[in-house]
């Protein structure tokens, strides 16, 4: 069956340099640097990545960071809380725009 998303394609991510090498190299260097232990632990970064993966709804990233957070010792409750953070920000981002709607509605109402 043909689908737009194929789990096997995740393994090909490292090969995007085939079409444009220098940019891919720079990106992967940067990526590696970002996820290193720093002011935030590698574990904290992995949980942020899991939350962002849900916000941008990337199935590859969701698979990859589910495994990565588990490898880093996170449990299901912590992982789900991270997703709720993403959901809260997404929901909040919609709702906070309602102030604009309210402003406009009031502006044009008697």
């Amino acid at each position, binding site marked *: 069956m043909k689908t737009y998303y194929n789990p096997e394609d995740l393994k090909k991510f490292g090969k995007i340099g085939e079409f444009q090498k220098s940019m891919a190299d720079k990106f992967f260097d940067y990526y590696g640097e970002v996820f290193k232990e720093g002011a935030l632990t*590698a*574990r904290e970064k992995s949980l942020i990545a899991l939350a962002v993966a849900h916000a941008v709804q990337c199935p590859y990233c969701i698979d990859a960071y589910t*495994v*990565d957070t*588990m*490898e*880093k*010792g996170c*449990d*299901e409750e912590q992982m789900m809380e991270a997703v709720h953070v993403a959901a809260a920000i997404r929901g909040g981002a919609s709702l906070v725009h309602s102030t604009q709607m309210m402003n406009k509605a009031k502006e044009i109402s008697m």
Partner: protein
Amino acid sequence: MKSLKAQNHPLANTEYEIELLESSDFKGRFENKLEASRLFPLKPTQIEILQINMGKMCNQICKHCHVDAGPDRKEIMERDIMSHCLNVIRENKIKTVDLTGGAPEMNPHFRWFVTEIRTIDPDINIIVRCNLTIILANPKYHDLPEFYQQNNVEVVSSLPYFNPVKTDAQRGDGVFEKSIKALRMLNGIGYGMAGTGLVLNLVYNPSGAFLPGSQQGLEAEFKRKLSTQYQIEFNSLFTITNIPISRFLEYLQRSGNYEAYMEKLIESYNPSAAANVMCRSTISVGWDGYLYDCDFNQMLELKVKSPESQHIKDWKQSALHNRNIVVNQHCFGCTAGAGSSCGGTTA
């Protein structure tokens, strides 16, 4: 739950297990990887550790157990085999004796054996792989912490997670709570506490088809969680990769994770972990006295390749030192990422 052996499961047959493992070689053969790292044939460096499997009997029946241990396993080491082990320890300057099982404490000769090893040399590092719950399993085991302390035994115990859900999922219902109680008893007499010299190390292995993350990161997390939530202290955390044999292999197959897991192990091959695999410095003794390169080879019934020295009663240091270590696809479990051994990472 019963052992694979009691279930007559096909994976209780080691030939079948090896056949299945070899079917993963389309992604790369362990021998070839070693060859490329200039490590083939794999040779011992120095035999320093004698790991003795005192039997397959255990009070637990963990889902990932590579020994296929459990209450229904009756194979245990007899005293005459232990006497041969004592001779070998005495005559070959063995630095570390690592006692494992099953639950080694269930062997009726366990205390005699530990005391005899300690008599040989006060400096030998004696390690017991204690599953914690055994301490509470029967009143006759309640004083094990004191016994360990008196004989200066290092305690290494598995705790796959700092909460009950994941621990019990892997090791059985109620295991987490009992493990916490046992850890408190060990802490109570000084194990794992600063300044006592009584060593208590914990072992983390993933509760599923994934690899362990950084040992340092996990240790920090375990220390923080166990200390704040349960007031438990310990020395070090060893992260161990689940080796794809026996009950863990059964889980991988049943859950449809076998191929992806093997692929991940093979892709994560690390030459510096390969250079430090534990079989280069260890000999593993089975309950019946036969010798193996490691506890995993023991469970696959792959005896050491030194025909004149395959049993503890025929120990020949030079033959063992010059042997080629028997490797196969399961060895990728020891060389993935930061590596894995009974003492944690190796790279």
